[in-house]
């Protein structure tokens, strides 16, 4: 076994055993969880390719058990969340460890080891410095938001220095989950009959965040050394090979009060290290990314949020010259605007929400309306839709055959 690959896992195992020896009797243990049903109906009338679930691409029944606890002094805490999933659409039963970690707290630092969700950055569903794995299939099918984030198998050290915090993460590589062609209609330049050969990096990823308050503003600086979480694909005559090229990122975010609302700013530089001059068409070019967002209340129980986002491709000339013929050419600057509207009714038991991505440069859109009603503290139901329109070469438009309506029902215990 590669000695580096197992860093995060082995440190975690060591941490857990050390704690078990030290804290033979755990002082608290709390169990909770939920059962959830989630079904998705395709709302566009299309002929699905063989092997793609067409009318009801998702029909999941899920049970989650959460266990958490710690010792009396609070220096040790743990949390585990395990899902059991019956995937009716694909006729599959599966289990998944969503999170499983142990914390060790002191006055000056916290160490968290194990599978953990990490969320960084100031964007609303737009990610620049959040370089942690995501599940886009769950997102496009209307699963509750928490399923967009995948846990990282990582050791995370938070150092507290006065009002400044330094977070350091070492994690095993975990790829993003992209929409699965058994459930989504995906246009691909590669023949579906060619076998896929996907390779994942063995070496760990590193990420740093330094954050603090500047008067009333939350400020953070980020850096990471890792890999693109979506694969770069390359076809030969016999196989489609997928690799995850190296990626370094550097960025900042700022978030603070402006005119009774909250202004968010985030920027980052994506250094595509394996494609330094931008001449390899199978890999992403380096990019500069920028986001400006503003959220405020516009009436009682009513909130609105808007964001403007841009990705500026570096080495655009090299990209243009090396792009194989037949491929849609991307713009040098990709721009997206988003709008979020949220309104609560009936003592916040009824939530009406609308989120829209508007692809300005790519001329496409992705609109997510939803209505959620809480019948009680334990039971809620959500109805919603994922509506993708516009240019088929755009990031959202390319999924245009996957418009859907969904229903989710959850009983928490």
């Amino acid at each position, binding site marked *: 076994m590669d000695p580096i690959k197992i860093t995060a896992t082995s440190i975690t195992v060591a941490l857990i055993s050390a704690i078990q020896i030290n804290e033979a009797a755990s002082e608290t243990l709390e169990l*909770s*969880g*939920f059962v959830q049903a989630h079904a998705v109906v395709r709302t566009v009338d299309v002929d699905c390719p063989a092997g793609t679930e067409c009318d009801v691409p998702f029909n999941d029944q899920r049970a989650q058990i959460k266990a958490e606890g*710690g010792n009396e*002094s*609070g220096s040790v*805490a743990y949390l585990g969340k395990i899902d059991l999933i019956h995937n009716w659409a694909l006729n599959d039963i599966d289990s998944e460890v969503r999170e499983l970690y142990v*914390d060790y*707290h002191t006055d000056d630092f*916290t160490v968290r080891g194990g599978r*953990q*969700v*990490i*969320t960084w950055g100031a964007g609303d569903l737009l990610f620049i410095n959040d370089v942690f794995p995501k599940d886009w299939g769950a997102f496009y099918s209307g699963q*509750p*938001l*928490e399923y*967009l*984030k995948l846990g990282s198998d990582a050791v995370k050290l*938070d150092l*507290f220095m*006065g*009002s400044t*915090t330094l977070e350091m993460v070492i994690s095993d590589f975990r790829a993003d989950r992209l929409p699965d062609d058994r459930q989504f209609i995906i246009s691909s330049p590669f023949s579906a009959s060619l076998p896929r050969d996907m390779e994942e990096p063995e070496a760990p990823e590193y990420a740093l965040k330094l*954050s603090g*308050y500047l008067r*009333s503003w*939350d400020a953070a600086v980020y850096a990471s050394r890792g890999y693109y979480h979506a694969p770069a694909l390359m076809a030969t005559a016999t196989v489609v090979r997928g690799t995850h090229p190296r990626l370094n990122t550097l960025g900042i975010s700022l*978030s*603070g*009060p402006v005119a*009774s*609302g*909250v202004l*968010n700013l985030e920027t980052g530089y994506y250094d595509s290290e394996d494609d330094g001059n931008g001449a390899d068409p199978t890999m992403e070019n380096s990019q500069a990314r920028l986001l400006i967002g503003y*959220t*405020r*209340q516009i009436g*009682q*129980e009513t*909130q609105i949020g808007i964001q403007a986002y841009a990705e500026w491709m570096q080495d655009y000339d090299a990209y243009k010259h090396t792009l194989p013929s037949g491929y849609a050419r991307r713009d040098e600057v990709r721009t997206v605007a988003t709008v979020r509207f949220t309104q*609560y009714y009936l*003592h*916040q*038991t009824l939530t009406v929400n609308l989120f829209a991505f508007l692809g300005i440069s790519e001329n496409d859109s992705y609109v997510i309306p939803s209505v959620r009603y809480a019948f*009680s*503290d*334990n039971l*809620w139901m959500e109805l919603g839709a994922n509506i993708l329109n516009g240019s088929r070469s755009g990031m959202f438009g390319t999924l245009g055959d996957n418009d859907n309506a969904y229903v989710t029902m*959850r009983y*928490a*215990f």
Partner: protein
Amino acid sequence: MKPNTLSVSGTFWLFVALLFLTSNVNAAEPDTRTIIANSLQAFYYTGDDMHARVLMRLINAQGRERNRELTMLRKNIGAEGEQRYYIYFHTPSDVKGTTFMVWKHPQQEDDRWIFIPAIKLVQRIAADDKRSSFVGSDFTYEDVSGRTVDDETHTLLSTEEFDGRPVYVVESKPKGKTDYERRVSWIDRERWLPLKEEYFDSRGEIIRIFTADRVEQVEGHWTTMARTMKNLQTGHRTETRFDQVDYGIGLQENLFSERYLRNPPQQWIR
């Protein structure tokens, strides 16, 4: 010297006018603004810091009930009214572990953050919604963390007995546009706590009623241990009970930071 003489005589006449004014009401009574300021002080600022376990019962007109159980930590910073609040939700299970923090600034908009444990997200939230419902209850954010005395103009209506307690009855009218037109408060003349508040709309109808249901002395501080806010328009009400109230426990200011939003301070949350 002419200017000096003028200012002396100015001060003299001001003094006379003040004497006349105060003696005209009642020399022993504080002015109305002071009554409200004392009441806000007693209700929101008692002790240097505070811990409480709070149970909120949200009951709709049909009697169906939802519960929110939370731990509240509060610390006063300096003498200018600056405060920090930290709230940890124990129940319901779907929101367990959610934390909420307010940096209250009397002279500017508050800063607020929420931590959503399912995605480990700390989010700054807009603070313009002081009159929005706190977690779906009949209490607003402002009812939880307090308002500023000069947000309203105050008039003393009478002094009387209420539930066996001597009270001031004060009418307050908000200066800015808000969801109520005026508010009438029954304020305990000795303990300064509000015993009842009625909120009126522009048609003169009562829209909400606050009642202090149980007032006790905790470590020398008079404390509203049980309170109800009832919405007369919807029939919805929220009954709130405070338990495990402690004052002067030595909370550190750095507890009110992102670090503890993400990792709740176990010694205070139990």
